[in-house]
Structure formats: C-alpha cells, structure tokens
C-alpha cells in the first residue's frame, strides 16, 4: 500500500503514522535510509523497501534514495552516520530496544555532529503490544546523549516533524531524533502532502580530524561544544511553532479558569483535547513538540503568565514523569506556589487511554464526570497468538519435546515468532530477554553448573536474530568453553516483523551461509536438519545433549510465507 505515500502534492491522503514518516523523509529529499525491523517501527523500512523494489519503478525518479535492511541497529545507525558524514541526508529507523543496541555509536555521534541532515527514528511501545523485554521510554536518551528529540502526535505531524528535523539537523549539524509511540506509529489519519524533493549534493567524505575523531583531549572540547549547541537549539525551540498553546472549542465561550493549565505532548495531547471536548472545559494546553531541548522560557511563561500565576498545572505524559520533573524544576524559579499534578493522577505503567485522561482532568478540575454503568462479563477467554498452521517451528518444538521427554532441561528463548514457545501447547521457555541474549545467558548458566555438568540447556535463536547479535555470544561459548545446545531456526526470513530479508535470505540468491559462520566460530558439533524429518532431528538432539562442547543444530525449513512467495 505505498501508492498513497507517493501521491501527488496538495492531495489529502490517508496514511499510517509510519507511512507519513516515509513521506516526510521523501519530501525532505532523503538520500540514504537504513533500518533493522522492529515493531512498532517496521512499516518504515518495509515501505522504503517496497518503493525501492517496485516494478515498474514507483513514482519515476523516486529511486533517488539508497535503502538497506542492516544486520542490526548499531550497524544501521553507523551506516547512516557515514552517509551523513559524506554529505547525504540520511534516516535510520528502529524500535526502542534497537536504540539501546545503537547507543554505543549514538553518544559520540552527537558529540561530533553530522554533515548531511540525519534523522533517527525510535518507536516506543507503552503497554508492550508488540514488545517483550521492557516498557522502555526513549526520552531518557535526551539526558544521556543530549540528542534533540521531537514528539509528533498525528500522522500529519509525523510527516511535518521529519521534514523539520532534517532542516534542524543540517542547520545545527547534529542528529535529531523523532520519538513515536505505538498509537502514533499505528494511527492513521488524512495527511496533506507537499512535493517530494530530489537533492543533488556534493557527495564526498572530506577529512576533518577535529570533527570525526573522538579522542581525548579533543573529546572534552566536543562535550563543551555540544552543550553550547544545545543552548542554541533551545533558543530555536523557544520560538518554534512545534511548542504551542492550544484551547478547546467549547460551548462555554470563556475560559473555565485562568488559574489552571495542562502541559502535554505526543499522543497524550490527543487524549487531552478529546477530554476537554467531552467535559466542555476551556483550559489552555501547552503542547510540546520538542521534548529536548525544552523551551524553558515558554514553559515558565505558561505557568506564570502576565495575567497572573497559575495555581495548578496538570502534566499528561505516558510512562516516567520526565516532563513533570522538568516543570517542577522550572516552577521553583518563577512560581514556587504552583501545584504540579502528574503521576498522582496519570499512571506510570501502561499506555494512556482517552478515558484515563478524561477522568484525570475531571479530578484535576473538580468537574463531575458521570461514571459508566458497564456490566463487564465475568470472564473473557484469552486468545494468545499462535504459530501459523504449517509453521516449521511446530516441527522444531515437537521434536525438542519428544527428544527431551522426562529430562530436566533449561530452555532459553530469544526474540522472534519462536517466543511463542513460552505459550501452550509448547511451554518450553525458561528465560527470555533481549535480541541474541539466549546464547550469552546459556553460557553463564552452563559455567555456573556443578562439575558433573548439571542441568542440560537448549536455546532457540532465529536466523535474523543470530546475525543481529548471536554470533559474538556463540564465539564466546567456544572460546570460554561451555556446552549448551543451540538450535538456530533458519526459516529464510525475518518472520515476526513482516518477512524482511536478512544476510542468509536476501532477495537474490547470494546469501551468507549460516553453516560457514558457525564452522568458522570453531563449533565442532554442527548439523543442518529439516525439522520435518522428525526422526533424524530427535536423534541429533539426544546425541548433541551428551556433548562436552557447544553444539549447534541448524533447523532449516522456510517460513510458510516464504514458500508462498516462491511458489
């Protein structure tokens, strides 16, 4: 469905937040795009990939950008950084946990700054709709890395903010982050389009030791320069329309109270406006498009306007009270009597919903809000996601269960469709953390085992996850000698995030063989088996569980969607 993304300028089309990000980048003349798929950011890479591979070429000249699925987010951001150093406008997209992987490069990158505009998109997932691991809040990177962060609320803003971010990035020679949340990334709405740009730039890496080498003592100067740069961007944030005061159109006609105010951003802003409409309240709302650097003077003026200081302000934000803490700090300077209400009415765990915000605003304003009389059913059956009918992982899990019947085995999980190992009817998942961690943890558990070998351990890791961050951990088990049984599930695609290619499963038949990598890592016990051949699969598991060194089974059977594409 990328046709809408490429529609003509001035048209109003219906776009998903993530599709609007793509359109915004095209309107900004993006020249280099890299990503590692991760929901809720996946559709960004998918759309660029579809546009790049469309036949006949979509939109004629549209192929003016380079796109890649990188091996992981760290490599993706480094590649986008390199392209920017050479003068290209680059975009890199990932989900929140990907940013953790990328952060090793991110921090020095913000120190050095960029040349071509560079935008980093990170998508958070409050309530963990499509995330294991944690309810991570990317905003924390503002104080960790000093990276400017913008927070759009709607698809229209997704498009407009990306364009703005490219300009900001180039003007101040600094990477700029766009932070989405699930309800922004997967929200659709009509978007007014502008024209797609094709940039011609001088593409050259111009050597500049002072800029691109982050060695001390220069690195300390860079730190100082960064802090000064942020203050300049703050001046820009002070006058930016991205930070504006909005009012609700109510039938009342006059402000409910001159003593109250609300500060919010992102999707929370939409719930606030909906609540004010519903409660028929007119309270000024400061909507912050910049999370970092915050327009401090604007906030101070909002809580202490010439018409008289506010008495109470409500901060509506999802997850941690970062905004609330900042407002608290600023209020001490200009309005120390201000009552700041935030997390006492707004939950810190889980995403917000319109009814939560409405009820919080009703309490904040002492407005009566009729309670609903809903007769909730006593129980609603829980329908967990399931492996697709015909999925090769059925063979893998069944085989493993057959081979280990009545044995005390620890099962390690990793990130992919095979996380479903933890649900019925499989129930073979004893730990689950982050991408690639199944092997590293397995090594630690095995090293901690008593001299007789202790419990046996089997880990599952997908092909794309293996490339992403499993390889160093595998080398570690060989180098530091432990003996888990690792089952690499090679289904020839990155299945969970929407069937993207990966190094051993590219669109063209020139993939990198997983076998060769495992061998080169020094693994002696290695076999590639189609798990549909249950007898051989079960026999090999039993045999490998007895080994004193690490062993690897590559369970090779394509995802049913890969078969469909080829057939």
């Amino acid at each position, binding site marked *: 469905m990328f046709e809408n993304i490429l529609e003509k300028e001035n048209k109003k089309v219906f776009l998903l937040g993530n599709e609007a990000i793509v359109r915004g980048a095209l309107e900004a003349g993006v020249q280099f795009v890299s990503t590692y798929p991760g*929901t809720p950011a*996946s559709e960004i890479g998918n759309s660029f990939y579809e546009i790049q591979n469309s036949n006949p070429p979509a939109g004629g000249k549209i192929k003016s950008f380079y796109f890649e699925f990188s091996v992981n987010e760290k490599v993706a951001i480094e590649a986008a950084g390199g392209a920017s150093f050479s003068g290209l406008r680059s975009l890199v997209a990932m989900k929140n946990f990907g940013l953790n992987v990328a952060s090793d490069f991110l921090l020095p990158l913000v120190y050095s700054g960029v040349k071509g505009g560079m935008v980093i998109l990170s998508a958070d997932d409050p309530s963990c709709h499509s995330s294991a691991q944690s309810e991570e809040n990317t905003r924390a990177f503002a104080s960790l890395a000093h990276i400017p962060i913008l927070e759009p609320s709607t698809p229209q803003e997704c498009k407009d903010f990306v364009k703005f971010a490219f300009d900001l990035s180039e003007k101040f020679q600094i990477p700029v982050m766009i932070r989405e949340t699930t309800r922004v990334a997967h*929200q659709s709405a009509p978007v007014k389009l502008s024209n797609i740009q094709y940039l011609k730039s001088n593409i050259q890496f111009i050597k500049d030791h002072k800029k691109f080498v982050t060695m001390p003592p220069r690195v300390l100067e860079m730190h100082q320069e960064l802090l000064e740069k942020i203050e300049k961007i703050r001046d820009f944030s002070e006058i930016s329309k991205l930070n504006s005061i909005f009012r609700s159109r109510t039938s009342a006609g006059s402000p409910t109270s001159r003593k109250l105010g609300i500060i919010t951003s992102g999707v929370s802003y939409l719930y606030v406006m909906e609540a004010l409409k519903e409660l028929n309240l007119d309270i000024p709302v400061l909507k912050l498009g910049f999370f970092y650097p915050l327009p401090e003077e604007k906030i101070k003026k909002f809580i202490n306007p010439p018409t008289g200081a506010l008495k109470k302000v409500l901060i509506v934000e999802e997850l941690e009270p970062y905004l609330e803490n900042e407002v608290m700090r600023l209020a001490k300077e200009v309005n120390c009597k201000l009552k700041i209400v935030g997390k006492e009415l707004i939950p810190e765990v889980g995403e917000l919903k*319109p009814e939560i915000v409405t009820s919080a605003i009703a309490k904040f304003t002492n407005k009566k809000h009729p309670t609903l009389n809903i007769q909730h059913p006593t129980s609603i059956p829980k*329908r967990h996601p399931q492996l697709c009918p015909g999925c090769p992982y059925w063979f893998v899990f069944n085989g493993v269960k057959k081979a280990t019947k009545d044995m005390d085995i620890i099962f390690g999980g990793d990130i992919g469709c095979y996380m479903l190992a933890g649900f*019925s009817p499989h129930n073979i998942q004893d730990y689950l953390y982050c991408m690639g961690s199944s092997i590293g943890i397995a090594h630690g558990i095995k090293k901690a085992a008593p001299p007789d070998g202790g419990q046996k351990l089997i880990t599952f890791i997908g092909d794309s996850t293996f490339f992403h961050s499993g390889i160093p951990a595998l080398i570690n088990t060989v180098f530091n000698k432990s003996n888990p049984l690792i089952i690499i599930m090679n289904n020839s695609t990155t299945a969970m995030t929407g069937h993207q290619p990966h190094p051993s499963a590219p669109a063209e038949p020139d993939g990198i063989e997983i076998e060769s990598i495992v061998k080169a890592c020094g693994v002696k016990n290695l076999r590639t088996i189609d798990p549909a051949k249950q007898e051989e699969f079960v026999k090999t598991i039993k045999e490998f569980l007895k080994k004193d060194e690490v062993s690897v089974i590559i369970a090779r059977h394509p995802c049913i969607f890969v078969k469909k594409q080829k057939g």
Partner: protein
Amino acid sequence: MTNKKEFNIVIVGTGGQGLITLLQILAEAALIEGYDIKTSELHGLSQRGGSVEVHIRFGQEIFSPLVAQGRADLILALEIQESLKGIYFSNPKTFFLINKFFVPILGEKLLEESDILKELKKNSKNIVLIPAADICQKELGKNVVAGVYLLSYASHKKIIPLKPNSILKAMEKVVPKKYFALNKKTFELAKKYGKD
C-alpha cells in the same frame, strides 16, 4: 450522525480475519464524505491468530485515535466470542453487529452462544447476530469476506452513517484488483439480504 458530532466503531476479531482491510475501507469511505478521521491498529505478533481490536472514529473534528470506554456507536465482531471484548466500549445505545462464527481457542471450551448473548444483553438492546460466514460460504464459496459482508450490511441498513456508494468506492481503492469482483458481489449480497 444528525445530532451527534462523531461516530465511533470498534472492530474485534482474530488475527487473519482482515480487520485492517475493513478499517481501511471505512476510513477511505469517510474520507470520500469529507469527515475528519482517526484510526488505530496494532501490528506484529499480536496478529498471529490472537485477539485483534481496531478502532475508527470519524466526524467533524477527531483527536483521539482510540474510542473511549463506553463510547462506541458500533461494535463489529467478526467472531462471536470476541464480541465480549466490545462490552468495554459499549453503552445502552451501542449497536452490536456480530458474525455468528466461532474460531476455537486452543485448550479452551467454546462459549455457548446463549451465554455470550446474555452478557451482551446486560449492556445493550441492539444486538444483531448474522451468520455472515455461512452466507458467504454458501453463496460465494468463501467465508473470509464475512467482514466485508457485515460492513456492507451496516451501510445498507444505515447502521453506519456512510453511504453504500462511498463504501463501494472505498473498496475499489483499498481491495487488491483481483479480489474486487468478489468484494463487490459480497456488497450486493448484503444489500439483498438486508432487504429481506
């Protein structure tokens, strides 16, 4: 939508029933009629046969992409057990349009139709159960279009304030070309049954 400024729909069902396509058809139809629209959907692992719930709101000025608790005008349930999830969004005026179709849950006993209806009736009087999957299977040989059938039915019966013609136009835009004929037949079938 004469005296109301907005219309809120929650569609519930299971992964693979085409909820997102229905959402896109509704959104395009609302766009044709000049409304402001917001939708919310979820992607990723939740789609693999799990419960799916998507929202669409249209009207003069729409902010939130999510329908608030108790504020749905229509709950469209593509699977009968999933209709219980709609109760959270319902009020006594909410219309429940339900596909009389069970997708079993592994390791769980199927709920009784009468028990489901009892729970729904505690909250709303406007409950319509239609064997859409059976009708589509019998008349068209395919039950995957049951959602399109219900949606078409809702527009012919004026349960949704969008003209049938807008729905058809939207379908033409959203549905892949090779499936459009089937979808159009489904639309006509719903019109015929709607009259009966």
